[in-house]
């Protein structure tokens, strides 16, 4: 079978800035594929194009063997491609549980009439959604925070909650944008385990944008390096790590810091 997500020749311009230039990305089903690169390389923009939130000037995106280039963001979400955000996008006015229940949106099976009249189906589905959300909260270790206001959670827990919300959608493909940003070493370690567990227990394919090189090299099956909006290298983590281009352009920079 071909890739779960395939992006071909993706080009994005913001005014004069070329954020992405003919970038290709292939994500194999069941893999953890990481995208790394210096600040401003275009990683977030690439996730934006994949999820339909950034308009590409050229290129094609296919998901589950269907061309979704023209599909709006919500349709991609509903089709099972769910993302998180580099700058947290928490529904701060809702409880943690309600946030995660919102994640269930795409597989709650009732219509407007059901909720206006609170039919039997409504109650059944709502109970199922609630239990599902609680399970996901438990999975990320936030079960005891279900009734807290999401905005009151400490930063690290808000990151976890965003992941719980995303996996409550039972995605086929999960796009994570710098989930370790702002986390300490111990939290990052735990996050790595969580990401692996999501793949193992739920069979979710994962795209990970991350700066933390240890985390990336430890859990990825494939790594793609972006620099100034261009593909620099792609391959298994060990190979990418040894790639002279990458060492020169990216990892070398890190050593200088």
């Amino acid at each position, binding site marked *: 079978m071909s890739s779960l997500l395939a992006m071909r020749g993706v080009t994005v311009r913001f005014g004069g800035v070329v954020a992405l230039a003919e970038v290709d990305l292939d994500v194999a089903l069941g893999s953890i594929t990481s995208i790394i690169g210096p600040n401003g390389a275009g990683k977030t923009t690439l996730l934006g194009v994949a999820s339909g*939130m950034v308009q590409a000037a050229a290129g094609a995106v296919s998901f589950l063997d269907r061309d979704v280039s023209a599909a*709006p963001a919500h349709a991609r*979400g509903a089709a099972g491609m769910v993302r998180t955000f580099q700058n947290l996008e928490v*529904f*701060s006015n809702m409880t943690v549980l309600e946030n995660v229940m919102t994640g269930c949106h795409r597989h709650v099976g*009732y219509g407007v009439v059901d909720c206006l009249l609170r039919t039997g189906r409504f109650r059944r589905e709502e109970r199922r959604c609630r239990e599902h959300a609680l399970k996901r909260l438990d999975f990320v270790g936030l079960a005891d925070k279900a009734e807290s206001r999401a905005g009151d959670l400490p930063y690290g827990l808000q990151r976890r909650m965003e992941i719980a919300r995303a996996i409550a*959608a039972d995605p086929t493909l999960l796009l994570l944008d710098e989930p370790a940003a702002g986390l300490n070493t111990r939290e990052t370690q735990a996050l790595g385990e969580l990401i692996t567990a999501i793949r193992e227990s739920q069979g979710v394919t994962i795209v990970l944008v991350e700066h933390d090189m240890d985390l990336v090299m430890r859990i990825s099956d494939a790594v793609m390096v972006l620099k100034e909006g261009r593909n620099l290298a792609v391959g298994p983590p060990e190979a990418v790590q040894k790639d002279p281009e990458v060492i020169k352009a990216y990892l070398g920079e890190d050593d200088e810091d």
Partner: protein
Amino acid sequence: MAPTRKNLLGLGAWTLLMALTPHLLTNDYYVSTLIIGFFNAIIVVGLNMLMGYAGQISLGHGAFYGLGAYVSGILAATYGVPVEAAGLIAIIATGLIAWGIGIPTLKLSGHYLAMATLGFGVIVSIVFNEAVETTGGPSGLTGIPRLTLFGITMESDLSYYYVTGLALTLVMALSLNLIQSRLGRALRALHTSERAAEAVGVDIARYKLFVFVLSAVFAALAGVLYAHYLGFAAPSSFGFHFSVTLLVMVVLGGMASVWGAVAGALFLTALPEFLRAFENIETVLFGGILILGMMFLPSGLAGGTAKLTRALLGRFRVGARRV
């Protein structure tokens, strides 16, 4: 489900209070004030869902109210359509118009809805004023028959009070149900982050459109009840001024609370009546009370009451521990 039981209790208490109130009032005039308050509350509950939950602003709900009143009034008074049918047609027609306005504007993010509804309100006002043959022009449409339901005409104010109170209760119950569902969660979610809502598959344009149309339908329902109560409709009751008053009711009541919406509407409807005693300084007092409300109740009557209850309960608990 606990929250539902809470709603049921709340609605039960409300219905009881609503049913008893006319018998506690000494002056029949207050009953008619309450009826007008109920009309406003029906609109404000809908508008609050649009503003408080979905974060969209409409400056045209006065016009939807007016459309409900005029369409139903004209059909019944001029064309002799039975009142029930006239009302139903008016509500459906208003909903369709709102849908037509919402489709192009709600696809865009930003305050396009506010602008579109502002323009729409102006146009509707012009039509009410200028289409004299049909609407009666600036002096108004007269001779609208009283509301009839299942062959019974609601002649007395008391019967009208109960019909309107029941309609409001129904609107409240439907709204409460809607809010505690996937739809309500989607609305609150897109209010905070449209991107994050879309990321989990929420079709945000569709949900905004739905709640906008629903709020217009509620406004039209209130308009129908209004027309067949007063027997009369004039353009000045449905203009920009009234649309803004409705927004003030939402904000004063407290965004994102059905109970707050009802409280805000009833309070602001009754307030001018109470202030009438202070003839000369009536307007100043009205403005002063609004400003004080905004200063000391930033989250509206609903938020203020919740805070007060918590504070009292807290004190009670502390007191109990000391004993």
